[in-house]
């Protein structure tokens, strides 16, 4: 045994996504003149920061083997509330706390439903998304009013050489990473994600860990909504819909397993950077929206496959690909680094729904 916290992340799993980011940047820099200019990089980092911050909660929830599908309307509702409270002249600061508090509450309900009532995370967060959509509609009566308060706009788009939101994101990356590696909560996330029953039997606070993760997800999505309303100046209904797929995609592209227990937020950051660079490059070379959609899907499939087979898996796994036993085993249990943290399989637990 090594001293210090045992890492749940293999170096290759972190190096490869960042290597791909570097390759994508260089390739885009060669193909598109001015892609690597400081102004464009600054714009890129702002986009990456939004999706990166939104994906904090999704990373934790996916590490637990859950999923949060309520992200779209967590974002949308936060944006609608933020602009609406500005319209009703609620003091700056108080509105922020109200919005974030609401996200916390909705995340808490998600967590309570999943942890205590044993509702499948998919259904719980799906239902919550629908409920939040209703709340957003009722609050705004179909047409959200108001605009982003000044401090929100400054936070989301301001900054001198380095945008404020990127500095904030960097701080959050450090905090989340340290929390996942060194705190009791962070270690529990990995343990519960790997094997909930074993964690329970070992006396870990399984339910508290799950609830906390969903609360963090509600918080980060709400905060993302605040940033987005700061970016666009106004709130509109449906503005969060475009973030459901990306919030999961950046986590998966970074190499975090949606079956839980393997991955890290550092990888999600790489995923956010990679998807932002690719998206921006596609737009600048003139690929239209349908083409972007198609390539988006292809990138997710390729990265999910690459992460599973080439980085985390071993050569043996590739050899069994297509063999009779291969699809069966691979589907049932996530591919894991061999014999490093677990010995037994978790037949039957390895499903997210």
């Amino acid at each position, binding site marked *: 045994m090594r001293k210090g916290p045992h890492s749940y992340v293999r170096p290759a799993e972190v190096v490869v996504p960042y290597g791909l980011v570097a390759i994508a940047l260089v390739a885009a820099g060669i193909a598109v003149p001015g892609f690597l200019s400081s102004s464009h990089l600054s714009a890129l980092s702002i986009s990456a920061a939004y999706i990166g911050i939104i994906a904090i909660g999704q990373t934790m929830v996916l590490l637990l083997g859950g*999923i949060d*599908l309520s992200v779209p309307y967590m974002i949308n509702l936060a944006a609608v509330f933020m602009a609406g409270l500005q319209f009703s002249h609620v003091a700056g600061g108080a509105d922020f706390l109200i919005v974030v508090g609401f996200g916390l509450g909705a995340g808490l309900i998600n967590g309570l*439903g999943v942890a205590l*009532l*044993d*509702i*499948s995370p*998919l*259904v*719980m967060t*799906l*239902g*919550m*998304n*629908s*409920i939040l*959509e*209703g*709340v957003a*509609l*009722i609050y705004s*009566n*179909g047409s959200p009013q108001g605009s982003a308060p000044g401090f929100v706009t400054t936070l989301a788009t301001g900054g001198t050489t380095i945008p404020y939101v990127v500095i904030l994101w960097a701080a959050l990356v450090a905090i989340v990473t340290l929390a996942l590696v060194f705190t009791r909560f962070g270690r529990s996330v990995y343990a519960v994600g790997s094997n909930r029953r074993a964690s329970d039997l070992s006396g870990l606070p399984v339910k508290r860990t799950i609830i906390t993760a969903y609360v963090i997800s509600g918080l980060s999505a709400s905060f993302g909504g605040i940033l987005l309303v700061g970016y666009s100046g106004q709130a509109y209904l449906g503005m969060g819909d475009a973030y459901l*797929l990306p919030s*999961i*995609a950046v986590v*998966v592209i970074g190499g975090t397993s*949606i*079956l839980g227990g393997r991955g890290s937020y550092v990888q999600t950051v790489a995923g956010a950077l990679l998807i932002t660079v690719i998206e921006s490059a596609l737009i600048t070379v003139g690929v239209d*929206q*349908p*083409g*972007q*959609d*198609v*390539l*988006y*899907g*292809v990138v*997710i*499939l390729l990265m*999910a*496959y690459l992460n*599973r087979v080439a980085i985390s898996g071993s050569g043996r796994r590739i050899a069994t*690909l*297509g063999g*009779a036993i*291969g*699809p*069966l085993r*691979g*589907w*049932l249990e996530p591919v894991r680094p061999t014999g490093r943290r677990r010995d037994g399989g978790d*037949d*039957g637990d390895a*499903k*997210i*729904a």
Partner: protein
Amino acid sequence: MSAAPSGLPQRRVVTRPRLTWHRAYTSGCLVAALFVFYLTRTGWTFGGIEALGITNDALPLALAAVGETFVILTNGIDLSIGSMITVCNVTLAVLDTHGFGGFAVVLVLGIGAVAGLLNGLIVCYMRIAPLIATLATSSIYLGIALYILPSPGGTVPQWLINWTTGDIGSSNFPIAGLWLVLAMAAGWAVLRRTNFGVRLQALGGSESSSFSAGISVVRVRVLAYVAAGVCSALAGIVLGGLTESGDPTIGAVYLLGAVAAVVVGGTSLAGGVGTIAGSVLGAVVLSLVSAVLLVSGISANYQYIVTGAIVIGALLAHSLQSKLGGVAAERSRRFSRDPPAEP
């Protein structure tokens, strides 16, 4: 993929009624309760117009939910159903505009099957978790749909419109209602009276046991995704008949609506336990909710809150039902521990 040992005779699986039907009771009761509530709001009148509205609303969702049921029974999930519906819907509209007529419908069914096949192959051979795989292909299919038809338009065959909207003959019974009943019957037949259906449920109950029992796990799973694709194509075609045109945004609501209907219908997300009839009834429940809100004069904005609450509540009710000694729970426990006995 002949995963089965070749020495075993491939005999027909003896089908026995598995006592999972009762899980559909909850949605059946919900339908009845909502319908009675609906009648109290309308003053006990229920005419052809109301029936038409509810069944037309429910039919595409029911078809999507039937497709989703096949996949969820394998312990997977298909989030590309909305996009497959969109692709099929716009392809139908474009093909008919170019004069393909009835052949367009056949072609569109084929497209749905191919899209589903692709999902199944990705899940089985690239071994990407179904959630991610279908979320990714959903993006791909939507992009393709936007290429085919960037903005709403196009035409659909007149006979398709005649066969999806309106009433049967001069009666007050909507054609869509007939299709709903047929979907339930066909779903029941496939699930309970074919080898594929029985293997599908076995696979969802326990994959390793199914494998040991000689079931070609890969083939059954791929077929489940193909079935979802074909059902999505049907939903896209029906939507074409109902709206009389193609629309590249039409499938978006069915992405999660189908899952909601399946959950309300009592199919377990853990796989292996569920009914097609339940999913069809689940779709009717969701349509009835909006109809009830409409006649009650409640703002349509509340519909989302009520729907969300019903989905979560239905799942709670089903898990409670299972915990209180439900037959399905008992059977699924047995299935997951011991390999099924040789029939």
